[in-house]
């Protein structure tokens, strides 16, 4: 059976595509070193348009209006520049209401693009641009630690990590945050307090990595300007030991927090990258696996949510307390406990 994978690696090659859904302008060149927060590609985001009715504006007939148009497609206009006219006894004219660009001009209408709102795709991790994807994106590569998570609030940033979590569980309290953490990425365990999120915004921090958070805080977290990434997900579970160990040992290192939303179809999930010298590491981790004995696996839902164990037996079809019969595997956890879980609930931990 094909198995989804989940990455938590102390040292690997990380290669990520960063692209727009449509053509834009690539802002970097192949071989260039980039930081997590650097924009690598940009495009105009849903610009505002204005349609001018020349016949109405100049009070001339529709058949005559075209000869009064003084602009052509592509012209960049400053506020007040002449668009059409003068016409008639009153020398009526039409002028650009704002700085804009002419998109279409003809017949009795002129279409203006008023704003240059840019959408920028950030690198999401520091590394090197190894490939340019036509005119819509790039591939960035780095070596380092990679820890994938289960939820992100859509923000991206990087900074030096301050470890506030003393253990894999426990709540991050507002009074644990102080001014010395301004500009840092904070590692906590669990958040059950809205004030903690607000205080982190005020400092501001450049990222918050948690094991879990109460789901009632989701809408608040989504409004924060800094990235919030949950390794395990919503609820109150602590961080898995491997994730905690890897992160807690990375205090004072620079980390990139890409709290992008999970999209299983596109294969993107929130992730943390800790750039490290990667001599001898040559290939990115495998994305495709088939279940087999001795793999490290992680359960994506109850029971044993987020726990990582070793697959010790493929059990064939098994009936579960829910009444569901499906292919299952027996997993042994570090504390010796064993559990039989559906294969559908397991990610292979690489």
């Amino acid at each position: 059976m094909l198995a989804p994978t989940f990455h938590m690696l102390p040292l690997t090659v990380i290669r990520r595509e960063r692209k727009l859904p449509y053509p834009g302008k690539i802002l970097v060149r192949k071989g260039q070193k980039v930081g997590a927060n650097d924009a690598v590609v940009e495009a105009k985001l849903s610009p505002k348009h204005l349609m001018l009715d020349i016949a109405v504006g100049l009070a001339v007939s529709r058949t005559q209006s075209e000869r009064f148009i003084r602009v052509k497609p592509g012209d960049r206009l400053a506020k007040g520049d002449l668009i059409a006219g003068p016409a008639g006894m009153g020398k009526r004219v039409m002028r650009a209401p704002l700085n804009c660009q002419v998109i279409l001009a003809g017949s009795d209408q002129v279409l203006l693009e008023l704003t240059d709102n840019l959408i920028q795709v950030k690198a999401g991790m520091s590394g090197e641009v190894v490939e340019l994807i036509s005119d819509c994106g790039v591939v960035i590569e780095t070596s380092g630690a990679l820890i994938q998570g289960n939820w992100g609030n859509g923000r991206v940033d990087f900074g030096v990590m301050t470890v506030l979590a003393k253990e894999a569980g426990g709540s991050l309290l507002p009074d644990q945050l102080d001014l010395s953490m301004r500009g840092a990425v904070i590692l906590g365990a669990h958040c059950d307090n809205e004030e903690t999120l607000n205080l982190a915004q005020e400092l501001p921090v450049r990222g918050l990595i948690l094991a879990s958070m109460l789901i009632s805080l989701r809408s608040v977290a989504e409004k924060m300007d800094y990235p919030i990434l949950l390794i395990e997900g919503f609820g109150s579970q602590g961080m898995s030991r491997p994730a905690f160990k890897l992160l807690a040992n990375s205090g004072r290192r620079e980390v990139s927090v890409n709290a992008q939303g999970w999209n299983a179809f596109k294969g993107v999930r929130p992730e943390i990258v800790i750039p490290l010298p990667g001599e001898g590491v040559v290939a990115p981790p495998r994305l495709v696996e088939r279940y087999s004995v001795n793999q490290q696996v992680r359960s994506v839902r109850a029971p044993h949510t987020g726990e990582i164990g070793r697959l010790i037996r493929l059990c064939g079809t098994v009936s579960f307390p829910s009444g569901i019969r499906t292919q299952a595997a027996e997993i042994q956890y570090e504390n010796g406990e064993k559990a039989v879980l559906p294969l559908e609930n397991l990610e292979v931990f690489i």
Partner: protein
Amino acid sequence: MTTGLIDTDSLLLLDVGSISTRALLFDQVRDRYRLLAAGSSRSTAGAPFNNVLEGIFSALEGIQKVTGRTVLGKDQNLIKPSTEFGTGVDTCAATISAGPPLNACIVGLLDDVSLNSARKLASTTFCNVVQTISLNDRQRPEAHIDSFLQAHPDLVIVAGGTDGGASQSVMKLLESVGLACYLMPENQRPVMLFAGNQELKEEVETSLSSLLELHFTENIRPLLDFQQNNAAQSKLAQIYTQIRSRQLSGVMELNSWVNGGLIPSPTGLGRVVRFLSRANESHKGVLGIDVGSAAVTIASAMEGELSLGVYPQFGMGESTGNILEYGNISELKSWLLHDFSEDQLREYLYTKSIHPGSLPVTEAEIDIEHALARFVMRKAVGSLLDIMPEGVGYQGDALLPWMEPLIASGSVLTKAPTLAHCALMLLDGIQPTGVTPFLLDTHHLVPGLGAAAAVNSLLAIQILDSNSLVHLGTVISPVGSARPGTPILRIKVTYENGQETNFDIKYGTIEVLPIPHGKSVRLHLQPLHNFDIGMGAPGRGGTLRQVAGGALGVIIDARGRPFQPPSDLRRRQENYRKWLWTFGVH
């Protein structure tokens, strides 16, 4: 039926779903069509494979392993037709529902007329309507352009103008669409289906054909008070497949395996439901529901008139994270048999949305899953009632007209712990009325048969006739309300050996008449207290001459219509325990 009636022998059905890819191999065994083997795999339309064929190969491997029959050549192509060495298959049909729903922009003149028709058309396939443009919205053309560019639709459906009616207003709206398309990169422009005033075809072609890919179909609103969308539905299904071929790798190859006959799964379900309704002698409707991960698809047909609704927002997979936008959390809680906090429920729904293929392990988790299934089925039935033609059968109180039969599929139903759990979910979610045989499509083969019917309808009929669907039982649901404990239905059962038994069914109960599998009985039904069982009028009874038992027997749902579960958790637990016990589940 004998072998001579059909040209081809073996049939391979492939279904590429959002979670699973299934392969089903049928062949003739002693003059009857039989399911020889079923294979399934995770679907691979998305990352990391990004090619639907990987999942198909994996599902076919399962079939090859079970049957020892090679269906794939060394070049990874389907061997078709079958060879004298026993390899390959004679016919292949395929359906698809993988990938995110298409983003659609609908354009019409008036909200409650042409736009409404366009919305109904969009709901017949996997679409999310991301923008509407109409005269009613009173927006300036540039606002239409801006929102169009922001919505970035894959598809534009245009309705409006009765035949020979409005033309200038339609063209004015299309001018904005045309301008917006002009501003988009060429390879990102949507496909347009024009289903409006037929007199505008030439003008639309002239002004828009250089900007985007145009398709024309019949006017879905040729008159103000008349709608038609059969041809438009077929056209839209073709367009869906065409867009998917561009978006998802491997779909083009799959389509070539089936000689261009790949269709969206809902189209396949709709075809079978329509076909059965035409063949239905009872003049009742036929209902099909697929409670899938990507969407809930519901199809009903009355004498060949199909109403089809595809609701991605009610899907049991990724959509669950946002499902509470379509209903109150208390609605969901009203079906639960465990005491969950709202936060626990929200956490569950979020986890389900990011791991849509994961399965409930504990009793408490499957309770949420089943509550969710009831919740989405109720929503889908409500949405179907909105698009069904008016004045068909029993209406009102959010109840469906009389249906015979109901065909149900979807993992939450087919993987239920017992058939009784499945039947209870359907009774609660669908609220059938009158007499309704329940058929369960455990292998999700009905949509595929709809696709196969285009190649060989006899073959599809043979398979439908071959007990490939599980007959859960015949359900009798009297419509009305009374005090609990009041007798509302008198039943006389006459067995094959002539023995007779009488039952009085009380309001508020579920009763099951166990009839051995393969046996049938005659039922005389007499509703009391003006209850209606669909035999012509409230209080009118009649005889059902040959009622097959099915897997569960004859089920009488005397809980009244509309049915609401008890609001008190303890009472709800007791009632469901009792009802499951009635089915023999202890």
